[in-house]
């Protein structure tokens, strides 16, 4: 008898529409692979539905808040339903770019110099009077400004000079209560997908991201033709080895499992700088992970089947 899989998608996050697109593709792939699929938009009825339907596992096709931050993971642990992707702790760590960067830095994985400030630090403690220190802290301009906890590069901005910093921070704070300011590393942007966990991780060919605007922000991600992608990335063989090593170490350090996507910049010296790790990578038609899988000779269905089988094995 085929396993019953609840595909969780939609929900209340800002990436709801992206998630619905990911979820639909995952549903189609699972159904084609012979699973009994239950497509669930995450609403107030979710728990009741899961309790009555009793799926064998849940495929988390949610993106953003509640789906990647440990909320849904904690809930599924409570309900005793195995699920795809990492556990509660790993989700919570990876969702927060600032926490992720602290862990990377403490464990010898390069990540660009950064600082983090919260909305409360501005409102209650006068943090806006210290913006002159930013250049010194992160090593000069340009800088990347982004919300600490948000997906799809929402609120991301490249800032060239101090005058534009406040506005960019205010914009980022529209997406989260915490903002990260990070040194801008010039180089080649790579998205490296990793499958599996523990001692058996596989790294898919890195996807090189070349946005025509220079910034891989939300519209560069979802509006067709605004970004060029190259698979595998156009970097030397030796660099590719380093990239794979760094992606793997990041995946393991953050205790990811089943699947993750590590985003990084390779600078002119071939040195990879990790920006963040996504524990529920996009699975839409134009997403990076499916692109990488295809380059590795894996179909979308292969990836989805492998991920769900990993989750089912945890029953």
């Amino acid at each position, binding site marked *: 008898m085929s396993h019953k899989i609840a595909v969780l998608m*939609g929900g*209340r996050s*800002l990436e*709801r*529409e*992206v998630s619905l697109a990911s979820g639909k593709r995952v549903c189609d792939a699972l159904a084609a692979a012979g699973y009994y699929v239950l497509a669930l938009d995450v*609403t107030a009825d979710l728990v009741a539905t899961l309790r009555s339907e009793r799926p064998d596992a849940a495929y988390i096709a949610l993106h953003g*808040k509640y789906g990647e931050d440990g909320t849904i993971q904690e809930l599924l642990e409570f309900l005793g339903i195995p699920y795809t992707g990492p556990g509660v702790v790993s989700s919570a760590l990876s969702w927060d770019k600032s926490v992720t960067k602290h862990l990377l830095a403490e464990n010898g994985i390069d990540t660009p110099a950064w600082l983090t400030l919260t*909305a409360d630090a*501005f*409102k209650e403690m*006068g*943090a*806006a*009077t210290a*913006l002159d220190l930013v250049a010194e802290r992160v090593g000069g301009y340009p800088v990347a400004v982004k919300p600490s906890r948000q997906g799809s590069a*929402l*609120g991301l901005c490249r800032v060239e000079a101090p005058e534009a*910093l*406040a*506005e960019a921070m*205010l*914009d980022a*704070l*529209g*997406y989260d209560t915490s903002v990260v300011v990070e040194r801008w590393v010039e180089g080649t942007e790579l998205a490296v997908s990793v*499958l599996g966990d523990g001692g058996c*991780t*596989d*790294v*898919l*060919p890195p*996807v*090189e991201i070349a946005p025509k605007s220079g910034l891989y922000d*939300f*519209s560069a991600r*979802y*509006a*067709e*033709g605004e970004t*060029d*992608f*190259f*698979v*595998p*990335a*156009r970097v030397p063989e030796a660099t*590719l080895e380093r990239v*794979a*090593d760094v992606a*793997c170490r990041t995946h393991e350090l953050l205790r990811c499992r089943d699947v993750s996507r590590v985003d990084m910049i390779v600078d002119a010296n071939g040195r990879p700088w990790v920006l963040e790790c996504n524990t529920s990578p996009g699975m839409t*038609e*134009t997403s990076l992970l499916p*692109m990488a899988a295809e*380059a*590795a*000779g*894996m179909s979308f269905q292969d990836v989805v089947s492998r991920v769900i089988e990993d989750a089912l094995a945890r029953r």
Partner: protein
Amino acid sequence: MCFVGKEMAMGTARVVFDRWSDRYADRLSGVRSSAVRDLFAAASRPDMISFSGGMPEVSRVPATDVATAAHDAMLHEGACALQYGSSNGRPETRALIVELMAESGVRLSADDLIVTAGAQQGLDLLAKTFINPGDVVIAEGPTYVGALQAFSAYQPDIRCIPLDSDGMRMDLLEAELKRLGPRGAKFIYTIPNFQNPGGVTMSAERRRRLLELSREYDIPVVEDDPYGRLRFEGGHVKPLRALDDDVIYLGTFSKIFAPGLRLGWMAAPRPILAKVLLVKQAADLCGSNFAQVTAERYFMGARWRRTLQTLTKTYAERRDAMLAALDEHFPAEARWTRPEGGFFVWVELPSFVDTGALLAEAVEHGVTFVPGDGFFPDGSGKNCMRLAFCYAEPERIGEGIRRLAEVIEDRLELYRAFIAAGAIEAPEEGAA
């Protein structure tokens, strides 16, 4: 650790999703929407209180009336309803429009107008008929997004004239016309009644002045009037077309019946109409006969008048609910219009506020609106927002405005901290 399928990778490939992307016409490069805004505006969550879309409350249109109209249309004129029709529209439909226009104070004959697929098609046809790349077109700022989209495809230089509570500012229009000179623009586009998105109505005095300027500079006026019959209070102001036969008038059945029929019309001087008709033939040969026959039947008798009254009363209640909630909850720094009809309230926040940066938090709080910059061709209006009151029930409107006020207040607190620190500039005294 290893690369999966590494041995299979034979050189790097550029991944292409749209392999025709380098072959599209240049004019499409100007037509782009904001991916983020679209995404949020379309937020389909069932619990969302939406102030985004200007959608008519079609549930108040009795289904049986429409069913009867469609039934009779097929029973009595089925062969015609299913066939191609004339490009300018059925004579019977045009006669109906003549009657409707007469009720608004416009006298014209059935040969002075054509039936279009909503007023939106009229906008596209006019743009295609009049605009060469680089031609100047004058519009209100802010103005209807759909007009900006329709015009932009033909690559005009759109100049926006600010509005106040009496509509388009004639002093500023005159200044712009002086700069441009006679025939310096292809047309002046206005939504004089309950403007989208401004909510304001052009005063009778300004209408007269607009027509004077139009004649003086020999530039035709395009009057877009979708909301004219949705007046909640105050006296009817005669359409521009009632005062000047050279005005190009766009009307629609979308608000007095339903947008699903895609029926509108354009009245214009006959030489212009002849050109537009050529363009329309290329676009669609003819409009939907089925929709036209159904509309003719729907507007027989007097039931539609009661329905229109119900609709207007419904929108009036919602407008009242929104204005009351704004008065109660919105911060003192905010200003908003008080529309006497139509669908929209326009809110202006202090100049340093970017409403686009508010949208994410608003969506998280289950309420949406449209940020102001989408209503300008040049990205100004960032500190403004459009709130549509037409679609949500009054209680939901109250709750939505309360939530939105909280989000705005939270943002203002953050801005104040940045201003206090001198990190961003404070607005000038008396501004906002």
